[in-house]
């Protein structure tokens, strides 16, 4: 009771003190940190795009406290390498015609096809190559996610992420972590590791397109699109995946606009679809109830 009274007194008096202005300066004071863990087949550029999409939601201040952003860049090399190998095989079988490696990025970036469309318009025979790449990608997704925990890159990366979460706790920062796709496997594991150390609800999670059976944070939640082809493929293989719960965009069979219906920025954070309001509402409910870490 005494502690609550003290906290109430501080919260009432704080705006009158010089500290108040410091607290309103982005980067000063503990404030909030919003973290993003990328999904599979995401390079450092795509991962940063995801973080930018989140920063566009909350800006640099929330509740008169600074908000900072951090990317937890999860390894995704295995899947990328498989698609690269598939592309190399096609090039070897018809050199000259298919030696356009820029086409690979449409598939690796989520299946959309702005660059593929240009190439196919110039040479229609490239259509088969693009289709093969997309099929290879979808076939490999479930294998990679299924064996993620056994990947020797998993634990070192997880250690980095949990260290950062622990640091935010010691810095008195309220922390929200948003994960996409395979990033949710890291997020569940990091939550399990860090949560026992926390004395207050200073860590909350939002899971997007999760290929996991559960989300560990009981207050957290998830958003998965009804038209996410990657999660549908994973559900067929893994069997036990959180079911789709939000209406996704209508996909025109691997169209250039929507690709696999799975991309974090192109699909889930796209203001044209119902997914973004669902994610924002979930994130808001979590941020609003975040508590300051207790020493």
């Amino acid at each position: 009771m005494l502690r609550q009274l003290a906290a109430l007194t501080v919260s009432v008096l704080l705006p009158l003190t010089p500290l108040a202005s410091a607290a309103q300066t982005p980067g000063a004071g503990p404030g909030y940190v919003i973290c993003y863990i990328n999904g599979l087949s995401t390079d450092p550029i795509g991962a940063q795009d995801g973080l930018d999409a989140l920063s566009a939601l909350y800006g640099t201040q929330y509740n008169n406290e600074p908000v900072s952003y951090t990317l937890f860049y999860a390894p995704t090399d295995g899947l990328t390498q498989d698609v690269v190998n598939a592309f190399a095989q096609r090039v070897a079988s018809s050199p000259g015609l298919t030696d356009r490696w820029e086409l690979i990025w449409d598939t690796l970036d989520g299946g959309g096809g702005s660059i593929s469309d240009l190439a196919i318009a110039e040479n229609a025979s490239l259509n088969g190559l693009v289709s093969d790449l997309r099929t290879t990608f979808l076939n490999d997704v479930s294998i990679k996610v299924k064996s993620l925990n056994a990947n020797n890159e998993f634990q070192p990366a997880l250690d980095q992420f949990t260290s950062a979460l622990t640091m935010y706790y010691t810095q008195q920062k309220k922390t929200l972590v948003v994960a996409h796709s395979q990033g949710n496997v890291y997020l569940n594991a990091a939550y399990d590791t860090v949560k026992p150390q926390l004395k207050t609800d200073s860590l909350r999670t939002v899971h997007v397109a999760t290929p996991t059976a559960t989300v560990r944070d009981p207050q957290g939640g998830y958003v998965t699109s009804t038209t996410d082809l990657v999660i549908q493929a994973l559900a067929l293989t893994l069997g036990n995946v959180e079911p789709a719960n939000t209406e996704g965009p209508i996909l025109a069979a691997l169209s250039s606009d929507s690709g696999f219906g799975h991309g974090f920025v192109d699909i889930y954070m796209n203001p044209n679809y119902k997914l973004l309001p669902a994610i924002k509402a979930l994130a808001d409910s979590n941020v609003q109830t975040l508590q300051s870490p207790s020493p």
Partner: protein
Amino acid sequence: MVFPFRRDEAQLLHRFWFVIVLSLVMFAVSSCGNGSDKTGTPAAALRSISVSPESPTILMGKQQQFSATATYSDGSTKSPPAGLIWTSSNTAVATVDGSGLAKGVAPGNATISAAVDSVNGTSSTKVETVLATLDRSTDVAGPDKDNNGVRDDIDQVIAGFGLTASQTKGLTQFAAALQVAILNSPDRNTAYSNAVELHRGQECIFSQLRADSTKYTKQVKAFTLNTQPRVMAFVGFSRDASGAVYPQPTGTVCH
């Protein structure tokens, strides 16, 4: 000195001669305009029109100025007479306006024609995407004649976006950081530093174009990483940069 005419009669005479001389000049000018030479023979007839350049390649979205030259029955060549009409055989591929300025719309072939009455000339035109003109040399670096850290063909790609000078500079900063990442990321520490610089480049262009920025960065990435050695170099860089924590770049992100 004694004038044989009165003052008003002299003025009248001057006006008379002025009208005569003016009429002669106008007759001479109008004769030239009616196709007669100095000797009074009929002007040479328009025989053909040539269109140049003859077989240009236009990049999609880019423009190409065509010009027409007329050849007359006496062998002379000069600009076509008034009434020249420009047309494209396939406006889905290339359009052309009344001044001969064509624009590449989509990949394919079209014929650009210039005609006056029944006399016409043509030029076969091929429209290509930027994909067709990318550097595909075997080395990772590729040509960079202006030494700005960005491959010359990528400089052209960026210039073709039609962005403002500041946005172009930001996108060039991103492209240069990407080039460094694939050329010089021998270990995890260097890859981390290069990823930080890459993110700074992204933030620079993001601060100016917000959500639209990914449209440009995705293209610059794909066009830069357009050969197997370049893709492999980037995959290696991404692997070495992964499993790490990256605070969002803040402060002055544009160089």
